[in-house]
């Protein structure tokens, strides 16, 4: 009268198949949540940077220069005291001279401080956080840290309102020159009053991640201290190409871009953070990059 019987093979297989399907559904969902968390962290970093730049403006009456020619330093150095890194800022030599001078390329007291990783300068979705460029590596072999956030130096191309070209300081060595109509560019001294288009309508800081040759995402390869090296601008980028465009061989025109699906995040001039889609009308992207172009349409 014993009616107990075991599971048949078919039943077992069905159960295993169902479990497999459930796991298959779950794993991509976990990856998606991880990416969403990384994106939120990145958004927060940009918010902190935006607030830091505003605090700098409150104290100094203007935004820091995006990239200073005289001492080669980027805006990130000047914003340090306002992102809780005052003690590191005090170590910096703000005097004239290359950012990687000296026999060990330490600056001195400039590039050597990029050996410190400032977590607010890195997007957690970007796998490479160390600068890969040879000039950003100390002679003794120690590697510096890079930053995924770059100032918006301004647009290059044609202003749709006036039909004239956006102002660009051209240089002859093929790095693409310096766009002049953005908030953070070469030797800029932007004040709130000079952002005529409105601070909420102007891009200030954005993400830069490029798939270099090996298809690995990283920033522009420079350390976070570097602003200007000869005619190559590292702390800021011209807006010449659409978001997520691969490297065209023109260093100052490296496009803004990110590993987040479909676009990149930007801190606007008013400190808010927006996600701008990669497929946005290029004219609109450039209009948003300029602070005094008089354009109406703004990317959001």
């Amino acid at each position: 009268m014993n009616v107990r019987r075991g599971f048949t093979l078919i039943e077992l297989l069905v159960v295993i198949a169902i479990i497999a399907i459930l796991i298959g559904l779950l794993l991509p969902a976990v990856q998606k949540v991880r990416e969403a968390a990384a994106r939120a962290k990145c958004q927060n970093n940009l918010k902190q940077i935006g607030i830091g730049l505003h605090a700098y403006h409150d104290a100094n009456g203007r935004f820091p220069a995006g990239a200073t020619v005289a001492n080669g330093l980027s805006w990130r150095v000047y914003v340090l005291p306002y992102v809780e890194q005052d003690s590191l800022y005090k170590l910096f030599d703000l005097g004239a001279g290359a950012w990687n001078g000296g026999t060990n390329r330490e600056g001195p007291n400039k590039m050597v401080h990029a050996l410190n990783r400032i977590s607010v300068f890195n997007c957690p979705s970007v796998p490479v956080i160390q600068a890969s460029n040879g000039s950003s590596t100390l002679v003794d072999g120690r590697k510096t840290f890079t930053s995924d956030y770059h100032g918006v130096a301004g647009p290059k191309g044609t202003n749709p309102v006036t039909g004239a070209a956006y102002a660009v300081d051209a240089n002859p060595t093929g790095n693409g020159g310096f766009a002049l109509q953005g908030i953070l560019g070469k030797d800029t001294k932007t004040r709130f009053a000079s952002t005529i288009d409105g601070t909420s309508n102007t891009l200030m800081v954005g993400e830069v991640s490029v798939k270099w040759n090996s298809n690995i995402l990283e920033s522009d390869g420079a350390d976070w201290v570097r602003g200007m090296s000869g005619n190559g601008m590292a702390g800021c980028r011209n807006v010449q190409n659409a978001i997520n465009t691969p490297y065209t061989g023109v260093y100052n025109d490296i496009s803004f871009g990110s590993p987040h699906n479909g676009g990149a995040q930007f801190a606007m001039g008013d400190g808010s953070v927006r996600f701008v889609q990669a497929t946005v009308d290029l004219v609109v992207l450039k209009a948003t990059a300029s602070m005094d172009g008089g354009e109406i349409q703004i990317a959001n």
Partner: protein
Amino acid sequence: MRSRCCRPRAASLGLVFGVLLFSGCGGTLDNTTHVSGTVTFDGKPLPAGMIVFEPDPAKGNRGQQGHADIKDGRFDTRSSGKGVAIGPQVVRITGGDGANPEPFTPFGKLLFEEHTVRLDVSKEPSAFQLDVPSPKHKKK
């Protein structure tokens, strides 16, 4: 017997899923198209480089920017998946000799400064033959 009764339903379910899976894929946005063609430098095919198609706002064209890699003188925007907005374009070409590509010099030694051409892209699939003149000739 029971299993036979359900076959048509299973088939129709499969059909519905199939339609859902394959609808909405393929094709580009209405106002964009794909372009391909060849780029020569001083008459010879450009070994490596990049071509960017930017809609020309000075001539009233708006839209997304398209780009394509140049390999052995050929390019096709289908490879990047980003189409070109139909109408007048500002086309920018960069390129090098393709020897010893490094991360920061992906095209090898650059052969020329960024080269700009203006042209029209129409809706029909079109192939362009572009030539970048050698800077030596330009200087004269």
